[in-house]
């Protein structure tokens, strides 16, 4: 592993809670690793499991989905439906030997700037421990058969 390797993490944050939590972390000048690339989504329930697989295929070392705490969903239950989908996705990845820890989930509210910073730190370190993702990554085509 190269000395300069840093994990790339794609974070899908729900607009109403976790994205605002990230904002609060920034406003509060809290430090957290710069390894995360944020994609704002309307709701954690709007995150298709395919997005996570695609992110891993296209070069992410880890993926995080973060939404509102159960009961706080702006759309009432999007996060609780998402919870089922992501439990299944994790199990599927584990079943085919695909490092389930590369996909991570959290509930972070708009008031939890500190928790957001903590989650990013934990996720970054756990993905760093796994090393660069290779299992699902799309290979650059070599010019030979």
């Amino acid at each position, binding site marked *: 592993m190269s000395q300069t390797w840093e994990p790339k993490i794609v974070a899908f944050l729900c607009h109403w809670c976790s994205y605002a939590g990230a904002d609060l972390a920034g406003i509060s000048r809290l430090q957290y690793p710069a390894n995360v690339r944020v994609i704002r989504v309307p709701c954690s329930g709007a995150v298709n499991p395919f997005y996570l697989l695609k992110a891993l295929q296209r070069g992410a070392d880890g993926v995080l989905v973060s939404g509102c705490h159960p009961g706080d969903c702006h759309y009432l239950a999007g996060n609780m439906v998402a919870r089922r989908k992501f439990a299944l996705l994790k199990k599927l990845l584990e079943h085919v030997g695909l490092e389930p820890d590369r996909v991570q989930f959290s509930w972070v509210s708009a008031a939890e700037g500190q928790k957001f910073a903590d989650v990013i730190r934990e996720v970054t370190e756990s993905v760093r421990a796994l090393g660069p993702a290779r299992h699902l990554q*799309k290979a*650059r*085509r070599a*010019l*030979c*058969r």
Partner: protein
Amino acid sequence: MRRGEPAVARLLAENELDSILARVAERNALWVPAGDGEQSAFALYRPGLALRQEAGPTRRTAKEIFFPRTEILFTYGEDDGPPRLEAPPAEVLPAVVYGLRPCDARALTMLDPVFEDPGYPDGLWGGRRRGATLVGVGCTRPSRACFCTSVGGDPAGEEGLDVLVVPIPGHYLARAVTDRGEEWLQALDLPRAGPDHEAAAVRAAAAGAGLAVVDTEGLPAKLERMFGHAVWEQLHERCLGCAACTYLCPTCHCFDIVDEGGSRLRNWDSCMFPLFTLHASGHNPRLSGKERMRQRIMHKFSYYPQRQGRPACVGCGRCVEVCPVNLDLRSVLAQLKGVEA
């Protein structure tokens, strides 16, 4: 080799085949049939690889050697400096294909006019084909779905081959079909076969006869009048619309071209997919399974014969074996032949 002059038959001992193939593989990309049943396919030879010895053809076809499922046409980019365009490198070693069935070789000759049309020659196909030596093994035990003799083929046919090998007890009897084959055989330095061996080979070849009979007489001309026929409505009803038949067909050759990350790729495609004819506007001229199945049959048994004088089918029976719903091409042809045009 001059026409009319019978080639010298040579004898290849069964227990020496592996060492001979190992020698061939030193100077060639040697493809051999390997794997069992539905996992059988042509693979690059390596010492100890068990050759497939089953009845009938391999599940996957020899066309893949010359027309792979995915290939790079060229790559492009501008990483550092001016934009660049690179052609894929030519294959280093000439290919030798050992053990393909006469139907497989015949199928390649049906693809040649498609890829080597003088107006639009396909360099990748042509480059591989011109360098390749094809050593076929006569079919002494055809499979239950084979019907090559109904579409002009022969279990011991030579068309498209450079060398034909016929298995006889303890040996293979090898005979060159082309000059290239004669050179190839001479380089192996094999003993000549005796009259007993030749007689055994004739008997072995005869064992390949007795195949299912499908009457395709006059079908191309009849199909020309059947584009709007009601029979298509029934014929396609069971078809699932998968590409098992086309991807495992030795003469199907449709492809799609896509760009991916700086590479222009050619991938197999199938007329059985709705996406195959979907226009950018959203319009699809082959809207249902009826039109798609009609296209597959028409292409093989009407359009291709109009251009090339024979159906684009070698009767290998793969489509019959792989169809998930047992929609048998032989019955489809019989039905088309039977209805009033």
